[in-house]
């Protein structure tokens, strides 16, 4: 599903150049649930941004579902993001003046899905995350866990190839974190490919594979026995 070869990325800061990713080789099969771990500054967010086409790579190749990702202009990148990727952010990033259902329907709008179909799908995904009765509520009326669940519903609404979660539990307490991870596991059980960036050991162990980044290189890449989050809920 994801194929990365010899990925390099550096940022220019004035005269100095900061080499963040130093040759990453990495691939993800369909249906995997991968945790990317590392301390801050290890390059995990940069890697996720490049995977999410929010940032460009300097060197190397990136293939997503057989499509080479390179030299994208903004319009093309937006189109690919919409088609291939679903984002889950640490700070939820819901649009605060839109209701939960409208937020979920947003990616579909960019796909020019008809209004009626959008609403149906939005409700369907809200139901999946258990928030159907909250459909008309604004994000400000929801709790943190509920917001993240709306965000997950939004990420899934466009039926992307890969879900990218950047510290999805970073802003939540542990009970809510487990609820969210439970949801992510269930989505993964349905066959969706999910990448989770986290620095929390217990969250990482709820995935099926852990990739450890340190100073811009992969130091460890292992399959783990998945801990089901449901037992903590």
């Amino acid at each position, binding site marked *: 599903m994801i194929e990365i070869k010899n990925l390099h990325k550096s940022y220019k800061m004035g005269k100095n150049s900061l080499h963040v990713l130093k040759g990453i080789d990495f691939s993800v099969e369909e249906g995997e649930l991968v945790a990317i771990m590392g301390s801050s500054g290890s390059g995990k967010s940069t890697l996720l941004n490049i995977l999410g086409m929010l940032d460009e790579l300097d060197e190397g190749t990136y293939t997503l579902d057989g499509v080479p990702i390179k030299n994208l202009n*903004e319009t093309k990148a*937006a189109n690919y*993001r919409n088609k291939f990727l679903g984002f889950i952010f640490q700070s939820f990033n819901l649009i605060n003046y839109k209701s939960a259902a409208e937020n979920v329907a947003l990616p579909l709008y960019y796909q020019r899905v008809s209004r009626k179909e959008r609403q149906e799908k939005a409700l369907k995904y809200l139901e999946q995350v258990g928030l159907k009765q909250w459909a008309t509520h604004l994000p400000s009326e929801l709790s943190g866990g509920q917001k993240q669940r709306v965000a997950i519903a939004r990420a899934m609404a466009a039926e992307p190839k890969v879900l990218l979660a950047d510290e999805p539990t970073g802003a939540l307490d542990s009970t809510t974190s487990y609820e969210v991870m439970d949801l992510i596991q269930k989505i993964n059980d349905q066959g969706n490919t999910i990448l989770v960036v986290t620095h929390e050991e217990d969250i990482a162990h709820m995935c099926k594979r852990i990739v450890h980044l340190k100073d811009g290189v992969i130091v460890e890449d292992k399959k783990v026995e998945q801990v089901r989050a449901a037992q903590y809920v």
Partner: protein
Amino acid sequence: MFSKDRWDEILQVLTTNWFRTLLTAFGVFWGIFILIILLAAGKGLENGIRADFGGLATNTLFMWTRTASKAYKGLPKDREFSYKIDDVADIKENVKGIQYVSPQNQLGSFRGTNNVVRGLKTGAFTVYGNYPEIIKQEPMNITSGRFINYGDINEKRKVAVIGVNVKSSLFDLEEECLGDYIKINDVNFMVVGTYKKTNADGDNENAQKEIYIPFTAFSQAFNRGDNVNRMIITAVDDVPITNIKEQIFNIVKTNHRIHPEDTRAIGFFDLNEQFQRVVSLFGALRLIAYFVGICVLLSGIIGVSNIMLIVVKERTKEIGIRRALGESPWSIKQQILMESIFLTIISGMSGIAFGALVIYGINYVLDMSGPVMMFVNPSVNLGVVTVALIILIVSGLFAGFIPANSAIKIRPIEALRTE
């Protein structure tokens, strides 16, 4: 582009901060309101002045004789001369673009001695010998009977069309004047019509104290031979009389052996030139109105642009989210542009509507208080409204352009990081 969602979005954004939206809209509202009011005031002034011309054919030259100021072809200077009836045909034939040439003879004036008698009543009136065309050059309302026609001219009928004030001087109030006779310099003329002139600014009283009789009858009755006192010449609409008056002068100069460079022999009044001066004044007024109006509007537009910049700044994160979710930059740009155009058009249209209301109010007051000198029916026509609308759309685009660009200039990844 015009999907319901797009509009929902625009309304959602604009209504989240009502007060700010209203304040922003007010700038544009006020600008377009000032523009409309200024244009309407200019139009009112123009209408007032035009009403004073009262339908007078403005592309007209009045021409009379003075004395030759240069000796020429053996004839001395200071010589008096008179136009002849043949000059009329010469001018009509040789100058292109002439519409009417009315020769005119005059007898007496309202300041002169009593020259008109009917029974025991007498009066001093201006008597004109005219051709029927004169009514097209100096419009008058025929209030009863008829005006002079070519039958009168050809048969030299002694008929007269009298002003309403002449009638009131010579006839009793209830008396029928049509078919009755008045004596002009001891010659009997039958009254066939009465008129009332509508233009005549400030001189209304005297304008109704004139008597029109057929030119030919005038010449015969008062022994003018083929002399013509003056000529009233109107050119067709697309040929300004000012441009062809020299040709006319040359013809009469040749006919009457006036030195070609004698500029003082012919007296004239070029109404067109005067009128054009007034018209260009209105042009200047309109220009000023547009200038001032658009300047005021511009500050409104800059206000909109400013607010849109702030809105974009506030929504940076949201724009980042939208782009991460796959909204194309063009779509975002479109959104900002449409918000700005929508805001300008709505506020502009309410400015136009309010302006129209105020104009309506002014007109109402004017109607109630009776005519005001030089100010009639201030109004803006549909053309002006269309122009205003175009200005609004363009300025809305202009106001949204910079904010829209700044919205997509920032990369989504940075936009997502802002708080």
